[in-house]
């Protein structure tokens, strides 16, 4: 079945999410096709391994179906779906990770792990991607929720269950560590 000719496929989120909220599974399928890659990418940045990405995104969509009727503005479906995704991903992370003393988490000095890379020119997005992957999980999660998820500091505090001051510290450290690595590679 070709989806391209289906007018539903090209309708905007307000229409699609509105129909899905009213029970139209065809419209919901459009939403799934439209946002699966974005949600997979987001989940992958939050989770350390890729094994659970599909589970998390599926759970997010199933939850979204149930909650859609309560979404006041169907036009906001995209950011709403992202919120559900990060919530599901964080739930996974917290379930499988033993409590870590976040103040103790110290990034190894970049000089120690960078030598092999210094010879390579790493620019832009690739450098950022690598730098992110090397962050300790709590810093990476804060950064992803803030910069990709658009969370406020308070929302990150709620989501991760850590004090606001810790969020600030982790974010600042994350930015510093990313920049130090990226500038090292320039």
């Amino acid at each position: 079945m070709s989806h391209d000719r289906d007018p539903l496929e090209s309708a905007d989120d307000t229409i699609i999410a509105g129909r899905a909220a009213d029970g139209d599974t065809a419209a919901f399928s459009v939403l799934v096709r439209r946002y699966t890659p974005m949600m997979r990418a987001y989940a992958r940045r939050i989770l350390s391994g890729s094994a659970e990405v599909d589970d998390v995104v599926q759970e997010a969509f199933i939850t979204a179906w149930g909650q859609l009727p309560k979404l006041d503005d169907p036009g906001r479906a995209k950011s709403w779906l992202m919120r559900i995704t990060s919530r599901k991903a964080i739930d996974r992370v917290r379930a499988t990770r033993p409590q870590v003393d976040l103040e103790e988490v110290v990034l190894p000095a970049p000089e120690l792990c960078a030598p092999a890379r210094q010879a390579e020119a790493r620019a832009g997005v690739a450098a950022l991607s690598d730098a992110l992957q090397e962050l300790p999980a709590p810093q990476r999660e804060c950064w992803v929720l803030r910069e990709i998820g658009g969370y406020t500091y308070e929302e990150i505090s709620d989501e991760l269950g850590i004090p606001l001051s810790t969020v600030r510290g982790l974010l600042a450290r994350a930015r510093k560590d990313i920049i130090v690595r990226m500038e090292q590679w320039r």
Partner: protein
Amino acid sequence: MNTHDTPDPLRMEPDDLDGHTIEELSDYLDSGRSPADPSIDESAGCQIALDALERLRVLTPELIAADTAAESEADEGWVQSILAGITLDARAGRRIPIVIDPPGPDAGITEGAVREVIRAAENTVSGVLIGRCRFDGDVTVPGEPVLIRVDVSVPYGQPIPGLVDRLRTEINMRLSAHTTLNVTGIDITVSDLRHPSSRTGEER
């Protein structure tokens, strides 16, 4: 290698930032560098660090786009596995009474069915897609005035008032045939103008 005699702003320690912390600079950037803080603005070390933070900020949407592009599309199996997990109930909504003269039965129609009625109106107005339907007013009380609100997508290039009028007439007709709602108005909001989708070779 760096010596610690010369401040290196990209080590991002307070020594390198004229006493400021990276947290302060992050906040300063987040607030759009206002209200202006001369001790930051006049510090070369801070400016270098702020520039680096700014570069990072610019890269972020590019990262999101690259990450998304690197993910595979949802295939039919994926969509089906999600549909298998959702429950189709609870979209029925409330039972809307249908008033039939006595000795009539206790008659009613579900909100879900009425939404189907309204959505089917799009079949007679070519190219129109109906989004969300809302009922303003207590539909469970017979005779209660009800305002119908509908989001609509129309194809680009067609005169909108004509389409909207036809749609309104059609919805009105259908509501009369399928309900005894006291409809005081049908509010149609055009929320989407669609460009004609390109045809593919494959027939459905």
